[in-house]
């Protein structure tokens, strides 16, 4: 029954999205308001239908309906209820359904929020968003259906006269398999996914990915309708920020999951699937900066279109890479037949979008309203910043997908590019990014002299020098590290300096106390000052990345019980080990107990362990090394149990990761800043240039496509 309910709701959602896409297009072209209203209602309907379908699958997971193949694959009787719920996105079919649900949720909210304000764009917005949604629902319905069930059908050729088949519809003469037998053989959730980070990391990442559908659909709606004024920018910017917020959260949680679960002492391994999520983040960041130039100066109209389309294209490509088996990764789903349709969809979206931009450009609808006034102007620096972001995205794309694919196709050689490649190629670009992050906010729109820009850099520059001196006094050596810290601190100092300047100016103007003045500048211009908090977060992350990358120490030693290892200022004593401990979920654990001390003072007892998850006879056993960590702001003392020896000794891999917690704290600051910047402001007005432009209406001569 649950399968039928889920399936019917899914099919109706597919029909509804197709109907909405077609009818809204006809309604827009023939100016039939009723048709557009009908399309909107159909588009809104997709969300409750997909929610119903997802709820059916969720209930099936929780109530152990193992006849449904997806439930059998991702749960078993030992799976705790909590992980039964998260199993909804634990494998290909369920996660695709969940993806569709989130996409429909975004479309639902966007339609409700933007219906009145952007009525010219909405019909085409419905078309593009619903075409995309219909494509993904189609994949779920026709290729990766989570409601397919196991059946037993008569088979004269089989030894026992029956065979097990798998299908969405009930075959002729079929009977349901024995539920007890199904429960006994059910596989269970991948152990790697049984972690808090993985519980919310995929939903955040999916929200980030699907969230970019909204600005993309608005951009396409602007191109298709010819309403290229400023409406699409206003509609798209905040949605981009929302998607960017979730993508940032997803990336941070993914890093934390890797650090806690994957057992290699780090948080970013330049894995192709990690990179597939990072590329849209980079391009989306470029768009968030570049769109300001269009708002303030009416420039870079083509470029902004290209960026938002490139961002969504990167999302689709990343999804294709993760779900098609294009790349091997610990994060990727199994190989699947959806690769070809996804590739065709990605190519189609990219080509159609590009063709629309070219067409509008030829019509002169995307011309800049201003000229670049100077190479040191803020818009010039933002363009340079965009070049850096795009270069980073391309370099990471090349290392993750380009070079391996080209090498395999044309040189018949399978290659892997590891951290050596990415560190060589991306570090210079990241440094330039930090320099621009510092300099650009000090510049101004329009003409700027080098002298005045230099004057504005004196205070933050002095702060950066003081920071470098402090690093040196704290024992940091090496020109590269000091240079890196200096640049990153400079970028952060500019953010603090600008906030302080704003607060001081308000304090003088309004005679408010410093705290109130600071709060008021944030409430009055959330976007500007939220942006500075984001910069501060990126600065803190940068400090953590430099510290944990350049100064990480590691060693691997085998210790007898009672033996002590001295390493990086710490002493670690191996007390004992408890082998064969069985957890509630059936995993077998070898747990070691270590005492961590420093200068003779005991700091903590940590328990690195080795877990082996029970599997069915036809599966390979899954083992995980869960680290024991003693963490401070200064560093993490991170220990992995690598192996137990027959003589009772144990082999440990020990990492000391300096400043690594700055990465997580910086991430929190970044998220806070993004929430501040994206938070709706009651009575908030668009910039004056936009208000003028909007009042004037769309430029003449832009016919509806």
């Amino acid at each position: 029954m649950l399968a039928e309910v889920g399936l019917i709701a899914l099919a109706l959602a597919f029909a509804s999205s197709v109907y909405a896409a077609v009818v809204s297009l006809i309604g827009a072209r023939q100016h039939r308001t009723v048709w557009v209203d009908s399309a909107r209602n159909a588009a809104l309907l997709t969300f409750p239908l997909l929610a119903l379908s997802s709820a059916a699958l969720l209930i099936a997971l929780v109530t152990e309906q193992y006849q449904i193949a997806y439930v059998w694959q991702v749960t078993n009787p030992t799976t705790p209820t909590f992980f039964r719920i998260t199993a909804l996105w634990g494998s290909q079919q369920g996660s695709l359904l969940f993806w569709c649900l989130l996409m429909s949720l975004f479309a639902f909210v966007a339609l409700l929020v933007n219906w009145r304000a952007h009525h010219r764009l909405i019909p085409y917005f419905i078309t593009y968003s619903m075409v995309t949604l219909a494509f993904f629902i189609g994949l779920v319905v026709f290729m990766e259906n989570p409601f397919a069930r196991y059946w037993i059908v008569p088979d004269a050729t089989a030894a026992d006269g029956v065979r097990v088949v798998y299908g969405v519809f009930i075959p002729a003469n079929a009977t349901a398999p024995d539920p007890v037998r199904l429960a006994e053989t059910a596989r269970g959730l991948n152990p790697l996914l049984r972690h808090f980070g993985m519980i919310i990391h995929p939903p955040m990442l999916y929200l980030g990915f699907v969230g970019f559908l909204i600005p993309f659909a608005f951009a396409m709606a602007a191109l298709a309708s010819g309403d290229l004024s400023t409406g699409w920018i206003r509609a798209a910017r905040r949605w981009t920020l929302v998607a960017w917020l979730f993508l940032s959260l997803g990336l941070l949680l993914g890093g934390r999951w890797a650090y806690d679960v994957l057992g290699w002492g780090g948080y970013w391994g330049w894995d192709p699937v990690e990179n597939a999520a990072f590329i849209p983040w980079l391009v989306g960041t470029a768009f968030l900066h570049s769109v300001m130039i269009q708002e303030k100066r009416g420039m870079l109209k083509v470029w902004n279109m290209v960026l938002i389309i490139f961002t969504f294209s990167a999302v689709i490509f990343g999804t294709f890479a993760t779900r098609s088996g294009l790349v091997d990764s610990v994060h990727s789903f199994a190989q699947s037949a959806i690769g070809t349709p996804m590739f065709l969809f990605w190519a189609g979206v990219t080509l159609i979008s590009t063709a629309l931009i070219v067409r509008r450009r030829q019509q002169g609808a995307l011309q800049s309203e201003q000229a670049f006034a100077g190479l040191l102007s803020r818009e010039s620096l933002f363009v340079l910043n965009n070049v850096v972001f795009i270069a980073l995205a391309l370099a990471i794309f090349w290392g993750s997908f380009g070079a391996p694919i080209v090498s395999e196709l044309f040189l018949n050689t399978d290659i892997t590019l590891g951290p050596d490649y990415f560190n060589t190629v991306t570090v210079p670009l990241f440094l330039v990014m930090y320099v621009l992050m510092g300099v650009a906010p000090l510049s101004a729109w329009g003409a700027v002299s080098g002298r005045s820009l230099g004057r504005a850099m004196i205070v933050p520059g002095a702060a950066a020098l003081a920071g470098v001196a402090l690093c040196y006094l704290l024992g940091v050596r090496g020109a590269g590290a000091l240079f890196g810290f200096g640049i990153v601190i400079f970028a952060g100092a500019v953010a603090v300096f600008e906030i302080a300047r704003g607060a001081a100016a308000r304090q003088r103007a309004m005679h408010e106390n410093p705290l109130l003045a600071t709060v008021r500048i944030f409430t009055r211009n959330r976007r500007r000052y939220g942006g500075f908090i984001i910069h501060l977060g990126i600065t803190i992350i940068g400090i953590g990345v430099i510290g944990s990358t350049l100064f990480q120490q590691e060693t691997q030693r085998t210790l007898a019980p009672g033996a002590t290892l001295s390493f990086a200022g710490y002493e670690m004593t191996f007390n004992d080990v408890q082998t064969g401990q069985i957890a509630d979920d059936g995993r077998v654990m070898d747990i070691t107990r270590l005492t961590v001390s420093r200068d003779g003072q005991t700091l903590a007892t940590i328990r690195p362990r080795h877990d082996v998850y029970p599997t069915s006879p036809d599966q390979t056993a899954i083992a995980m090394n869960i680290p024991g960590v003693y963490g401070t702001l200064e560093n993490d003392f991170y220990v992995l149990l690598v192996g137990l020896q027959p003589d009772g000794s144990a082999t440990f891999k020990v990492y000391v990761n300096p400043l690594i917690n700055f990465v997580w704290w910086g991430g929190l600051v970044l998220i806070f800043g993004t929430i501040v910047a994206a938070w709706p402001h009651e009575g908030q007005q668009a910039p004056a240039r936009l208000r003028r432009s909007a009042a004037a209406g769309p430029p003449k001569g832009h016919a509806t496509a």
Partner: protein
Amino acid sequence: MPFRGLLSLLLVFGVLIGTAIGMLAQADPTTITDDQVMDVARSLYCPVCPNEPLDTCQTEACYRWREDIRQQLAAGRTHDQIIADFVARYGERASAVPLDPTLNALSLVTPFVIAAIALALGAVVVLRWRRRQPLSVAVSSSPMPADASAYRARLEEDVRS
């Protein structure tokens, strides 16, 4: 005959000396530390796992490959020789950066070329825009004007509610 006997004696002596030198050169694998092994393994990828560096891979096969590295280090082979050996046995994907000069250049030079082209295109576009249109020096309400007092005035206007 005495000469041939002397020659044979010398030959046997030479073989014995050579064997002894060889045995001395081949260190006891137990003297090779895990850190030395990991230093090499860090530059390699597991030949069978999906994008998994050899120093962190936890499969049984990777434990054996790390022991193989230990044996090779004990035999006096260098970091680069061991990597070349893995590449010869398992292909270029075993190395974190391709050893083949063509593949290496393709991998490492291309992104810099792309970045240079992107930068050049950006510069050309900016210069063309500057030439094509008359300069509009409509400075916005943002900071950074010519003098600090004007800046303060604009900022104060900006922050005034």
